[in-house]
């Protein structure tokens, strides 16, 4: 859109964009933004920050004890990005590159337990008391199929889900965040975290199983 065209209502100024860009920042892709960032374009930087900062904070919090330390790790990462943008060769997506930098910084800032300790969670996906002696469900399992999406998307469920995500052991949480919140594929997640596909699957399984159980208990306590 040319800068002398009137703005449609949906595009009213957000206050931070110093000049009207030729593309809507919400849809401009990372590669284009990076190329402008290399030229020192502040608006491109702000667009990238707006796009990823929240995700980065959530991920950083799985490594460090406080929100303040997480913010420092995220800021540090952005500075690493602007200094290192010339070294980004596009072999991975920008997001994968960004998260890898973040994980490295957050790990060194963090005081998390040794990595292998956290792989020892072998709690079952479902409480054993739910099964009979032969390993079959002791009572019927509710179907969520009818209006499942509406119920799951309701603000109350997403609040419970958000809490449950926050309560996951950190290694499960980081993987659920990357895979299911951020929608990264398993190869990229292994790349970002430096773990094997097998370990990733185990952690993903534990994490997703716990979230399901949290939603189930929420549904049962509130009734249908």
């Amino acid at each position, binding site marked *: 859109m040319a800068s002398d065209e009137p703005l449609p209502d949906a595009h009213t100024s957000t206050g931070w964009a110093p000049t009207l860009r030729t593309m809507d920042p919400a849809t401009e892709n990372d590669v284009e933004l990076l190329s402008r960032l290399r030229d020192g374009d502040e608006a491109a930087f702000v667009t990238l920050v707006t796009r990823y900062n929240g995700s980065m904070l959530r991920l950083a919090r799985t490594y460090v004890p406080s929100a303040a330390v997480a913010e420092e790790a995220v800021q540090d990462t952005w500075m690493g990005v602007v200094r290192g943008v010339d070294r980004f060769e596009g072999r991975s997506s920008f997001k994968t590159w960004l998260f890898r930098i973040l994980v490295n910084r957050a790990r060194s800032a963090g005081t998390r337990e040794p990595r292998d300790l956290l792989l020892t969670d072998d709690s079952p996906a479902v409480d054993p008391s739910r099964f009979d002696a032969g390993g079959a469900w002791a009572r019927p399992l509710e179907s969520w199929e009818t209006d499942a999406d509406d119920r799951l998307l309701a603000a109350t469920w997403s609040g419970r*889900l958000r809490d449950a995500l926050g309560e996951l052991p950190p290694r499960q949480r980081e993987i659920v965040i990357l895979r299911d919140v951020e929608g990264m594929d398993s190869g990229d997640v292994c790349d970002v975290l430096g773990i094997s596909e097998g370990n990733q699957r185990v952690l993903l*399984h534990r994490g997703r199983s716990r979230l399901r159980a949290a939603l189930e208990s929420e549904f049962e306590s509130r009734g249908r």
Partner: protein
Amino acid sequence: MLLRRREDLVCQQVVELVSDYLEGALSRSNRKRFEAHLRVCPNCTNYLEQMRATIRATGTLTPDDLSPEARAELTDLFRNWRGEGS
């Protein structure tokens, strides 16, 4: 998990295989046993659907918005960096 061959899966085993199933990581024979169990077990079918619904719901969680202060702070850092660089 270790599965004994040629035995039917029980529900308690199926729930531990759900993620490997969804990730396409089950061997061909275990996938067949998994799917054979689902065909006769409405509870595990519901369980699989609950897991899928959980994954979809997790995908709708959005991060908190960036506060104006945090945005301003980062923008300042950027300006400083650009000032140093040029």
